[in-house]
């Protein structure tokens, strides 16, 4: 499975470099200089080459603009959330299986914005009761794998854990670790696909492909409304490019006049028929969080 996804990655990189300006330019340059040396070539051929170069140019410009536009949307969305500084929220997860059986998880979440790097997040469990006080600390990294620590209250133990399990299930839910938190712009390549109506709004559809290894997805399709760049829907495609999951967000509220957050999210797994609903409550963007809360000592203080 690993080999297959690696092959896919390599193939994708080839595709990128082909449409990238460097390779295309050098091909065009050598064609042009060859034409320059052989002045005897008929005008017809020169004209033909010009047309060919033109097609190249148009094709390249089109490809670039879809990638650039996709990247720009991601940058704008990230920037729109800049300056939130920190927030806390209460999260209820409802895990449902195909038969409709439901399991509930309660978490508290604290997020601290870090200028120039990934955000720091704390997930604190209140329910099920046997994991009460268990906490996960994530130091997001812009260019490299995140740092992760787990606090086990029964043993009072802080344990550094590997962050390479990005595709793994978060506490048995349909959310993978990589589905949580703010997506760092550099961790994907982008292709803008189209704008289309979504409800009463207009949405832009962006295709994201992970640049780091360990992702469970070959690509994601992200629907954002063009006005506020809120994510309304994400389709996740697994490594074999079949449609694995769909996330829908709703009940958006704006905080501090700027920052949009969904009140409700639903992730449906199309393969297993399971789903996980998230209900967000008590968003507080005015919380005064100290960066030392997001440290190993902060973890030990959690209740």
């Amino acid at each position, binding site marked *: 499975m690993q080999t297959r996804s690696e092959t896919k990655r390599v193939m994708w990189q080839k595709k990128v470099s082909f449409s990238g300006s460097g390779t295309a330019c050098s091909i065009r340059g050598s064609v042009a200089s060859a034409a320059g040396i052989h002045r005897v070539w008929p005008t017809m051929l020169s004209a033909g080459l010009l047309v060919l170069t033109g097609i190249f140019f148009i094709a390249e410009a089109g490809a670039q603009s879809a990638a650039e536009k996709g990247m720009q949307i991601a940058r704008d969305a990230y920037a729109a959330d800049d300056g939130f500084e920190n927030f806390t929220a209460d999260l209820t997860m409802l895990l449902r299986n195909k038969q409709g059986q439901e399991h509930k998880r309660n978490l508290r979440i604290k997020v601290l914005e870090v200028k120039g790097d990934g955000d720091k997040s704390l997930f604190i469990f209140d329910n099920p009761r046997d994991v009460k006080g268990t906490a996960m600390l994530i130091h997001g990294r812009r260019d490299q794998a995140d740092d992760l620590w787990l606090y086990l209250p029964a043993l009072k133990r802080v344990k*550094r854990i590997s962050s390479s399990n990005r595709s793994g299930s978060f506490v048995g839910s349909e959310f993978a670790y990589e589905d949580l938190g703010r997506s760092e712009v550099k961790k994907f390549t982008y292709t803008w696909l189209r704008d289309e109506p979504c409800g009463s709004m207009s949405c832009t559809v962006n295709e994201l492909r992970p640049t780091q290894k360990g992702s469970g997805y070959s690509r994601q399709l992200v629907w954002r409304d063009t006005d506020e760049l809120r994510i309304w829907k994400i389709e996740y495609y697994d490594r074999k490019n079949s449609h694995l999951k769909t996330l829908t967000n709703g009940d958006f509220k704006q905080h501090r006049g700027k920052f949009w957050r969904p009140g409700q999210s639903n992730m449906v797994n199309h393969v297993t028929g399971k789903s996980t609903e998230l209900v967000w409550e008590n968003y507080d963007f005015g919380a005064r969080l*100290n960066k030392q809360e997001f440290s190993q000592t902060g973890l030990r203080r959690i209740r």
Partner: protein
Amino acid sequence: MIPAVARRCCLQFITAVLAAGGVVDGHADAIGDWTIEQWGTISLEGRVFLNSPKREGQHSSDFSATAKPTVYIEFPQGSFTFTPYFRIDNADEKRRLIDIQEAYFLQFGSIGDSAWELRLGIDQVFWGVAESNNPVNIINQTDLAGHPGGEQKLGQPMIHGTLNGDWGILDLFVLPYHRVRTFPGEAGRLGVPVRSDSGGITYETSRGKRNIDLAARYGHTVGPLDFGISYFKGTSREPALLPDFPLKQQYNLIRQTGLELQFVQDAFLGKAELIRRRGFSGDGTSHSAFVVGGEYSFYSVLETSADLTLYAEWNQDDRREKATTPLQNDMFYAARYALNDVDDTTFSAALIDDLDYSTQTLLLEFDKRLSDSAQLNLELFKFLDTDPVDPQTGPISQDDYVAINLSYSF
């Protein structure tokens, strides 16, 4: 089959507890700036020993119940945590215990970019990175009667100050009171009888249990590396057992320096703990011990949500046959298969292979959540081979057991 039975049993147990306690309900109340919260765990455990006992009078099974409630009061800039611990046992009176695991005030604040914390009272502190054994972990006394694995600890009175900044974490401890290790009793298993009456316990220091011990630890994270350097000066947590029948406990003054290293690279964690301890045997000699190894995880095994983690750790104590640990030169191999389902179903297996003797020990464990508040744990401890000349495991070579544990968390 087992879950169904367990669930029914648990429901009866929970009903009984609710009826008896009347107040067993985890919740939080807010009074002005104060928050009062309570939670905890009650568990029932049965152990059946698979072989006839080594000594006459030792029981072949036992049944115990434990309760560990916590009351937590939070107020501006601080909190108070209180966690008593109760254990009753039908077969071994030395396993009966009333302990205060936590009873401390916490205050915290910041100085510039650094944060400080001060804890006053009884608390528990864990140091270490390894899975099979944590030689650096020295602040709390081990409740060996509670569980032979040694992870169960007793509360330790302390003044504990912490400074935390971009330069790392510094913990300083003043430990004004010594707790005596618990051992299973004469009828109990696993182990040999150890005296715990005042006549059977001696201290090197004339202050006895009121000696003031000191400890410090500095820890930091540098990229993929977490490390900790620790120092302890005071009365040993581990007693030297004096040859007598029953054995007597002698607590000498020691100085212990510890080092912890952990390195993360993708799905691999490399780990090491090393200690140098002086004064344990009371004759001024020193000894060293280490555990070094790692774990590697395979995620989404066979395209399911399950993870498989493999562990290998090498333990050594340079006293070898004179060592006071069974892990004097032992390999620990383990596998943990976590289904990552809503019940957190987990299977674990570990093999401890003694490199000096032919002794081999097998540990199997199964964990599963039965409901939002009930959990099941099954455990098997079995010697696959016992070496008659192995001095560390000889006394417990007959003590293979299976245990079933049902817990209710509120």
